[in-house]
């Protein structure tokens, strides 16, 4: 029964010169992870390095396998990444962009319709992506990542441009995916939302300065040191927050 399972996402000494300093971490399957830190702390860099999208030093492993030994197509099946920017230069219909998530599966279309519905995009399915609002484009990016069916999901500020209802839905989706066994890493700025995650990672000046359960990590002291604000904790507010 108690077989030792490899962490879904492992990094040791992960560094990008000038942007990220020797980050080591282990994230398990089924974990919902918040990544927080001030602007320029290296959140996007860490996410990209974990996804293998940046030349980086150190070791990254997905499900116990060294990233350098995972073939490109296999990477597309194991991990999905959603970038902060959602620019689309060519007028592909929304449904086709989401269907690109199935590239690594030989374009087998299963899960595309569900992904569209999950991100509330079904009614926009035939609209060219170039004619969407910023928030809608972000939802298209998320739907495409969801369509991959990848068990590791890395989302870089997915809710920054979303209205409150869609932001809530995205957070609930993240929780559902984690409950289903996926590892979901979400970078965000709303510290209050971060308390609802299983784990919080705090980056500051390219260093990982916090890693653990939200209440253990996001203390008034850490928030003062990293974000330079005085935090007041009002326990009763927490349940009403738009978070998973």
């Amino acid at each position: 029964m108690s077989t030792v399972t490899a962490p879904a996402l492992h990094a040791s000494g992960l560094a990008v010169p000038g942007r990220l300093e020797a980050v080591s971490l282990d994230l398990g399957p089924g974990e919902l992870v918040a990544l927080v830190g001030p602007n320029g702390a290296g959140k996007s860099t860490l996410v990209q390095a974990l996804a293998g999208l940046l030349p980086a030093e150190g070791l990254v492993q997905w499900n116990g396998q060294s990233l350098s030994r995972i073939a490109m197509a296999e990477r597309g099946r194991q991990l999905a990444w959603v970038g902060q920017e959602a620019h689309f230069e060519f007028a592909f219909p929304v449904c086709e962009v989401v269907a690109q998530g199935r590239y690594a599966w030989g374009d087998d279309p299963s899960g595309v319709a569900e992904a569209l519905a999950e991100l509330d995009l079904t009614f926009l399915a035939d609209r060219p992506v170039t004619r969407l609002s910023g928030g809608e484009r972000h939802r298209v990016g998320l739907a495409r990542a969801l369509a991959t069916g990848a068990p590791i999901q890395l989302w870089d500020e997915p809710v920054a441009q979303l209205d409150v209802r869609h932001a809530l839905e995205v957070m609930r989706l993240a929780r559902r995916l984690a409950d289903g066994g996926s590892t979901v890493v979400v970078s965000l700025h709303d510290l209050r939302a971060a308390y609802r995650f299983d784990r919080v990672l705090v980056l500051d000046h390219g260093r990982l300065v916090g890693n653990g359960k939200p209440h253990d990590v996001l203390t008034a002291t850490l928030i003062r040191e990293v974000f330079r604000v005085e935090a007041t904790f009002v326990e009763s507010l927490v349940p009403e927050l738009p978070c998973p």
Partner: protein
Amino acid sequence: MRPRVAVPLLLTLLALTFLASLAFGELRLSFGEVIGALTGGSDEVARTVVRDFRLPRALVGLAVGAALGASGVVMQAFFRNPLASPGLLGVSSGGALGAVAVLALGPMLGFAAATMWALPLASVVGAFAATGMVLMLAQRGAGTERLLLSGVALNALLGAGTSFLLTTTAGHFEVNAQILFWLMGGLESRSWEHVWMGVPAILVACLLLLPLGRAMDLLSLGEQSAQSLGVDVRRLRRQLIVLSTILTALATAVAGIVGFVGLVVPHVLRLAFGPDHRRLLPYSMLGGAIFLLACDLITRTFPLGLRLGVVTALIGGPFFLWLLRRPR
């Protein structure tokens, strides 16, 4: 327009322009005479005109158009910009400088007689040297922006070289006229040698491009997202650059500089049939061939000494402007 109509429509237009290319000219032939000439019927004159002159010219035109159309699609997907064109990385200007150098310096060095092969060869060498230089300059991470800017700088540099050679030969009218003719592109007196020089390799490069369409879809919406979805972006970019360079270099080598095909054709077809590269690539090959053959027909119908490169721009430019102003 529905993609379903695209293939029959484009193939019909291509067949028509191709047949017209064989029928029109100083000696006007009917379509029946053309078919006869191809199948061994008709009289001797018609056979000679069609087989030895018009057929190679039409085949070169078809291949050059297809090459430029395909190359345009590739550059636009590569740079994620619908305004990119085959010459963006200096391939055409490199080819031009190579050819102009042979034309300008050949007579001095005494190999003018060999220009039949020397010209295309020098053009291909120049084109590949230019791409090689851009790739070297932009190396190290070779970000798209850096590649683009290196291309802009190199284009200016190579253009300056061409202009320099053009002005130094200003006193030699013959040479100067030859250079100008070449710089404005053209298909006249293309022979079977030109066909063998360009067509097979263009065909192979086009066939190698076709399976890359799906990956190009993903690349055209972002390098990082394409890679995260399982595309080997580094490999794909290398393949695209090499194939697009080969296509543009060969087109330039056998027909001189022909502008606007690679920009307008993919753009029009994308608006008509959507941006899916699995379709856009073959459509642009067909569309480029149609456009080039049609423009070549105009150059020989109007006895003004119109050059092919001038006609493609004269038609392509206003059409493109109209397209941009059209409400979508």
